[in-house]
């Protein structure tokens, strides 16, 4: 059992990281390979000591990953539920979230970003994490926009305009990976402030700054700039890579954002991902609006039609405006003929699980007292045996609404990916709609 356990976590980590491994090695060789001894690299990468824990008698054992992962997941879930309840008050249990977001990610590419306390360098780590962040952001905020700004040599310049396509953002970022000079927080804020004041009033304006340096080299009084951002209702958040600095803390406190400082690469990634789900919107930050939208049908693959965007005949695909029946090639867009906003409805539906979250399940262990009731033998979701399952604890959970029992793996899957309780979906109060 123990041999299996030692192999387990290591193997899993390898499998999970395989996608990024090749690039990582290339980067290391290109940027930092010479400066790092082979033995040093092996320990820094594997951190084999972290997969051990001490038991009651002081012996080192491999971590019981299943229980550990489940405990970690429950902590996240309960935090999230508590935060939601706190924001909306006791009267309204649902979460109000700013789902149309306009976010500029400001990346510090000053001299400080070339430091190597993160492997291979802060810049490489930031670029890699931003790539993951951008994808996650669009997955969670389908109608939102992201733009990238870099600070270096005392000035800020825009890498990309606000846009809805993750691929073009990532391409632009990866093409501009170099760092030099001093950072200027004020220049960055001024630049982004200018862009963000032009977005529609129902959008949420946000800046996320990834700051490596411990200084800022500004042309004027940064306090005025911060005041302007506050007036424009721009929420500024900072993730630091070195240490906490006062001006960032002040900026975030004034504009309602969050300030966090990362300890290492994994922590940085985690802090960055926290900004991907929509933050609980502060009601007055954006004017709520009802937007008229059309949900076009996709045409058959064999039909030939002239699209209104390129004015060319095209075979297959394409969407038909439900209002004027014009043909468009891609979604989301605005109909060229009647001006209706056209979106793909699945795009909207991606975020509905935020509105109707699955309640956290209650922990239940197989108690002999309970055997009077027909105690569940298998997980309702996956039919896995609940009694023989797991090593020592036959811990499982039950849904407070439908009272069906689930195994720990299903519990995680249901809350993190599926967002439906299979038990609640498999019953119905009344068939008359």
């Amino acid at each position, binding site marked *: 059992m123990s041999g299996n356990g030692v192999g387990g976590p290591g193997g899993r980590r390898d499998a999970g990281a395989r996608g990024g491994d090749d690039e990582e090695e290339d980067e290391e060789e290109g940027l930092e390979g010479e400066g790092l001894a082979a033995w040093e690299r092996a320990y820094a990468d594997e951190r084999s000591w972290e997969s051990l824990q001490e038991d009651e008698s002081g012996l080192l054992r491999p971590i019981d990953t299943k229980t550990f992962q489940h405990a970690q997941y429950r902590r996240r879930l309960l935090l999230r539920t508590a935060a939601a309840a706190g924001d909306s008050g006791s009267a309204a249990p649902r*979460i*109000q*979230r700013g*789902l*149309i977001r306009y976010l500029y990610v400001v990346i510090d590419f000053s001299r400080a970003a070339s430091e190597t306390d993160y492997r291979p360098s802060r810049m490489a780590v930031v670029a890699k994490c931003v790539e993951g962040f951008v994808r996650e952001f669009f997955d969670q905020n389908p*109608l939102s926009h992201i733009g990238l700004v870099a600070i270096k040599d005392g000035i800020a310049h825009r890498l990309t305009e606000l846009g809805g396509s993750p691929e073009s953002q990532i391409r632009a970022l990866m093409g501009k990976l170099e760092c030099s000079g001093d950072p200027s927080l004020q220049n960055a804020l001024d630049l982004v402030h200018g862009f963000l004041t032009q977005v529609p009033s*129902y*959008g949420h304006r946000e800046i996320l700054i990834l700051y490596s340096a411990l200084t800022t080299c500004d042309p004027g009084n940064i306090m005025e700039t911060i005041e302007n951002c506050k007036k424009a209702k721009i929420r500024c958040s900072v993730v630091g890579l070195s240490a906490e600095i006062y001006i960032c803390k002040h900026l975030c406190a004034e504009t309602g954002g969050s300030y966090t400082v990362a300890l290492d690469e994994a922590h940085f990634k985690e802090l960055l991902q926290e900004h991907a789900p929509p933050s609980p919107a502060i009601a007055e930050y954006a004017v*709520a*609006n*009802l*937007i*008229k*939208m*059309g*949900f*076009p*049908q*996709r*045409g*058959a*693959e*064999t039909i030939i039609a002239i699209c209104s965007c390129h004015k060319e005949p095209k075979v297959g695909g394409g*969407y038909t405006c*439900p209002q004027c029946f014009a043909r468009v090639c891609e979604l989301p867009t605005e109909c060229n003929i009647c*001006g*209706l906003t056209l979106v*793909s*409805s*699945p795009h*909207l*539906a*991606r*975020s*509905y*699980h*935020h*509105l*109707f979250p699955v309640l956290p399940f209650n922990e239940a262990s197989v108690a002999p007292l309970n055997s009077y009731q027909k105690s569940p033998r298998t997980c*309702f*979701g*996956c*039919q*896995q045996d609940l009694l023989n399952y797991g090593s020592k604890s036959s811990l499982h959970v039950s849904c407070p609404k439908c009272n069906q029992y689930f195994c720990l*793996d*299903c519990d995680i*899957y249901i809350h993190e*990916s*599926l*967002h*439906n*309780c*299979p038990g609640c*979906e*498999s*019953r*119905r109060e009344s*068939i*008359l*709609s």
Partner: protein
Amino acid sequence: MASSVSSKLYSDDVSLVVVLLDVNPFFWAGVNANSGTNQPAAALSFSKFLSHVLPFVSSILLINPLNQVVVIAAGVKSCGYIYDSGGGSDGTSVSDLRAGFLRRLEEFVERDRQLCRDGERAAATTSSLLSGSLSLALCYIQRVFRSGILHPQPRILCLQGSPDGPDQYVAVMNAIFSAQRSVVPIDSCVVGIRHSAFLQQASHITGGIYLKPQQLDALFQYLSVVFAADLQSRSFLQLPKSAGVDFRASCFCHKKPIDRGYVCSVCLSIFCKTHKKCSTCGSDFKQASADSRSKSDSKRKTLEAS
């Protein structure tokens, strides 16, 4: 147990097919009633339907001895596992399949019927619980993913007759996105009278095949030609091309399918008409409707002028 599974030699053409079987009695009863009258005889009786599906399930098991089939029934009040060829006790031989399958299906239908209260009478438009059966299928498939690096390639096949239940819209979409994230294609074969917008979207988003057979008498042929081949072999086949996808959404207020609507900018809820307040998130839309109307009007005017 886990080691015995992973020690089998899974190549990339071994499949796990989770079949979602529509056993909505109101739909199948409606079919029988209709065939007595002057309705076109496009529809199929439930026993005929089973006589096409059972050989299809057996044929998947015969194509490759390592293939696995799981059947989940979707009723009007409940969903449940009917058959698992990897379950052991039921056995994998084809004669066992038929007996075990029919017995458990009968038990399920009886239980589903008991859940319906006496006073309840529903029309043939009652939907079956697609969202529940999809959720169960995905939980089962996750378990297969967890069983080891080597596992059969999973896919879901929905055999649906009853119409979509717009009240399941959010749950069905959640399940579709989860399937997409885990790269599980959802194939669908619609044996009802109308197309299913849910299944069109499901198959389109997850990269599965959507089919509405013209001749239901030949259902077995459709199933075996289109849906029996493993995912690896699909790229070599000329499969039916998509005949369009109905991307209509369901409004949150009346649970009706709509192609145009009003979307709350705060929570993205969809409504079929303007409201003063969002019923999902409680936001006030004060000058909302007037504002957007004047904007689109002015846009139209400028277009006309140019």
